[in-house]
């Protein structure tokens, strides 16, 4: 295995883990079926690209057209990417999450995703249309005087740190009273409102938090790939992440991480390798991949709806005989 392949795999694993942790907060914990998830990753990627690139009049960049171009130093483009995801969540959330019933919310968000992709794809002056932005500078690549190979492993390290930070924050949310209220909202929104909680505010906050994390994942990805185009964030990408969270275990951060490793990373790698075997017509394997993703979702929803790592039962200290093998002490696992 050559090292570029390995680095590539690790970066994608990190990005997918971050994305799945965010989607788990929204869908797994809070029950917000965010079928537009990928546009928040895209917003972060575009924002990070524009914040790190020079204006499109610069010599090496004049083959494309885009707004802005600020040449900010790392980590500002990544922070900007996270902010872009959060900011985008505000208008989208206000439109989709306030008045609509939850099943219509999902449809509205799916349509939003398709509209956003179509607009960016066709409005060339904005973000260079279907060709996308290219030549995005890699963070600190000018300042760091290291070999490409070392740089790539540094990038893996920074990605790993981001995964750790996001996991830490997601764990604090899931294991807190706030996370408990989000889970209650997932179970019965009307009842939560009848108990004095504002469901719209709850949904908006988690939508914005998830948007910010998704934005960060996009910023990490674009800094590595150096290109970002509408074809990389079509709506089916969201479905893959949903499959990951469902397979891994809804509501459980570990499940989301496992799901990210099993579905977008593991499953796609296996099918990609199969593609190299030249079986059947050229598009057979990619098409079958989608069939398999669909079957995977259906299979798990049917036979193991709680996923590989189900949500943990919370048992509080001093509880009478726990009915389950897993013990939790005020949100923390005990012996």
């Amino acid at each position, binding site marked *: 295995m050559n090292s570029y392949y390995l680095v590539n795999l690790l970066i994608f694993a990190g990005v997918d883990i971050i994305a799945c942790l965010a989607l788990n907060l929204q869908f797994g914990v809070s029950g917000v079926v965010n079928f537009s998830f990928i546009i928040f990753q895209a917003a972060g990627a575009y924002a990070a690209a524009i914040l790190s690139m020079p204006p499109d009049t610069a010599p090496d960049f004049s083959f494309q057209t885009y707004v802005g171009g600020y040449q900010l130093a790392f980590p500002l483009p990544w922070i900007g990417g996270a902010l872009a995801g959060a900011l985008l969540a505000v208008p989208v959330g206000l439109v989709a999450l306030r008045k609509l019933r939850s099943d219509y919310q999902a449809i509205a968000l799916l349509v939003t995703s398709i509209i956003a992709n179509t607009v960016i794809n066709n409005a060339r002056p904005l973000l260079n249309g279907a060709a996308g932005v290219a030549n995005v500078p890699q963070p600190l690549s000018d300042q760091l005087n290291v070999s490409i190979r070392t740089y790539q492993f540094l990038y893996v390290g920074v990605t790993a740190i981001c995964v750790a930070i996001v996991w830490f*924050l997601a764990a*604090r*949310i899931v*294991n*807190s*009273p*706030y*996370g*408990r*209220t989000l*889970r*209650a909202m*997932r*179970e*019965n929104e*009307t*009842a*939560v*409102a*009848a*108990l*004095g*909680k*504002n*469901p719209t505010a709850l949904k908006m*906050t988690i939508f914005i*938090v998830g948007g910010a994390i998704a934005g960060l994942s996009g910023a990490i990805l674009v800094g590595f790939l150096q290109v970002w185009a509408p074809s990389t964030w079509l709506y089916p990408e969201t479905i893959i992440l949903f499959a990951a969270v469902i397979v891994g275990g809804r*509501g459980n951060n570990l499940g989301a991480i496992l799901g990210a490793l099993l579905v977008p990373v593991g499953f796609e790698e296996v099918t990609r390798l199969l593609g190299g075997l030249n079986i059947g017509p050229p598009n057979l394997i990619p098409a079958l991949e989608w069939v398999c993703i669909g079957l995977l979702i259906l299979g798990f929803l049917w036979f193991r709806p709680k996923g590989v790592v189900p*949500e943990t*039962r*919370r*048992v*509080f200290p*001093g*509880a*009478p*005989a*726990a*009915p*389950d093998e897993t013990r939790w002490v*005020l*949100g*923390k696992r005990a012996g």
Partner: protein
Amino acid sequence: MPVSEPILTARDIHRHFEGMHAVDGVSIEVMPGRITGLIGPNGAGKSTLLAVLAGTLPSSSGSIVFEGEDITRMPAYQRARRGLVRTFQLPSEFAQLTVLENLLVAAPDNRGESLLGALLGKRYWLPDEERLVAQARGLLKRFGLTAKESDYAGTLSGGQKRLVEIMRALMLHPRLLLLDEPMSGVHPSIVDEIAGYLERLRDEGLTILIVEHELHMVERLCDPVIVMAQGKVIGQGGMAMLRKQPEIVEAYLVG
């Protein structure tokens, strides 16, 4: 006996569903410290009225005053925070949360319940959490569900789910409890138990408005009783008095 002000006053409440008048000009008063019954045939508009009072459904017109404050335009969650708390006709437990967690969700004052509080970590909210766990365990003990503390609420029996809902509402320290058929779908042996709990809550000063079908329970618990039929109030007073009015007996039996 001192003359008391009503805790809740609803005036001329209307609620239409696409031309159908589910609630058609209802005015009621709920007096503090009593269990007020709301009875009537199926489709009389009882549950709709309760939903309008709690803010689950907006009213088409009319006004609602709760403890001297006009709450007509207030969303459900704000009414609940003011102490106007409802339960539901269908079981509405948080199925994938444990019984104890169901109660803890309802607690109004936990520092860890905001996003910021959650991110600040356990040390920040643990004192609140421990206080509320103790409070919730007190309720579990009182309602005889201590052993079920760590069970998922979705696995409870119909009667136990009702009790969880009532305990959940009590975690908010309600001023007025709106109960929508708390005995429906409950094993007969538990019906008496629930009635006993409600009587004790009333004796402790809690005001309750209850929609109920079981007339012998209404007779035991409620004074006064409000009778609705076809979206209107057709009578109110003590149960014994209502039984003597032929038009009420007829509406209830025929409807």
